[in-house]
């Protein structure tokens, strides 16, 4: 197969930069051998290429750019484990919520007066957030001891609303929740 003149013209810049190989190279060289116009064009292209390559850029980011790059890469590398840990915390919180939900379901026999009622309209006495590493068993034990039950939550911010059971005293429950700082992260009393 022989290249047409038009095809050869398309490949002239690649003859000028020396990237043509094999049969393609041979055919383009043959095409220009007998064509003064193509020879002139090739010479012009070689000139343009040589002129472009001879010119040096005055400035490049160099070592300053490398310092900036390394700084950002290091920051990213440090942030990556933290992001991983955050994912684990979120996953643990979700598991915790599921465990609470299952406990509620298992301890409810259907009668409104037995166990947690989770009535959306129940008035809350306390708002709490829970330590990320607290277990469901620890929280359950504390809430039973303090005489409170979860009436809503967790919210998107991880806040649970607690209400006193009939037998419990508000001050006593508050004291027990407040002192259990290894389980309760924050406590607020409702008005």
């Amino acid at each position, binding site marked *: 197969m022989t290249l047409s003149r038009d095809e050869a013209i398309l490949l002239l810049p690649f003859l000028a930069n020396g990237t043509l190989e094999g049969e393609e190279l041979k055919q383009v060289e043959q095409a220009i051998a007998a064509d003064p116009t193509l020879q002139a064009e090739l010479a*012009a292209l070689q000139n343009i290429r040589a002129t472009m*390559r001879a010119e040096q850029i005055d400035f490049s980011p160099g070592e300053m750019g490398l310092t900036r790059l390394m700084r950002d*890469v290091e920051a990213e590398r440090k942030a990556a484990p933290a992001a991983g840990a955050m994912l684990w915390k979120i996953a643990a919180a979700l598991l915790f919520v599921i465990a609470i939900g299952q406990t509620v379901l298992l301890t409810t026999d259907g009668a409104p007066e037995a166990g947690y009622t989770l009535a959306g309209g129940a008035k809350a006495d306390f708002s709490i957030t829970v330590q990320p590493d607290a277990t469901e068993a620890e929280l359950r034990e504390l809430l039973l001891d303090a005489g409170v039950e979860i009436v809503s939550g967790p919210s998107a911010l991880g806040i649970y609303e607690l209400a006193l059971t009939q037998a419990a005293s508000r001050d006593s429950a508050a004291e027990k929740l407040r002192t259990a700082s290894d389980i309760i992260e924050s406590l607020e009393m409702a008005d």
Partner: protein
Amino acid sequence: MIGSCCILTGNTKQAEANLETAHTLIKRIADGDRTALAELYRSMERSVYRFILSRLNDPFESSDILHDVFIEVWRSAGRFEGRSKVQTWIFGIAYRKVIDRHRKAGRTKLSDETPEIIDEADSAETCLVASQDAAQVNHCMSQLTDEHRSAISLAFWEDMNYREIADVCGTAEGTIKTRIFHAKKLLMRCLSALSQGVTT
């Protein structure tokens, strides 16, 4: 450390011999080796920066894009499959980042128009003198569209073949051949006009 001028540039036999080295560097970067990233940066920084600068004509913006390119290399090295040369992969990232920057800035293409008074048949001969003048070549390059300028830059600065340029620009080989053909014609006509004292 690998020499800073030629590890990944050009299509010389030396560059081919260094291909495996470049792929090894990328593997090391994928494994979190920052010294490998520094080595790659030192070997390619100037040529990638020159390519970006030729398209943006803004040193500060070009420095930022260069930084973004190597951050992406750091993040994506694990996804480099080795089907292309490391050089074309990195220039491809730079090519796309400049396009993104143009889009964000709402920049429009520069006009392809050049003076029509020059006979095409005479262009090659009449532009010979101007083609040796860096200022005139730079001026005519600046008149090209970004696509044309990119293709010529990759062909003449980086000595890429048309397959590699197509790879960088994410387009067909035939498109690159015709793109460079048109860019070349516009360049020659512009240089011819300058040789004959016509203001472009």
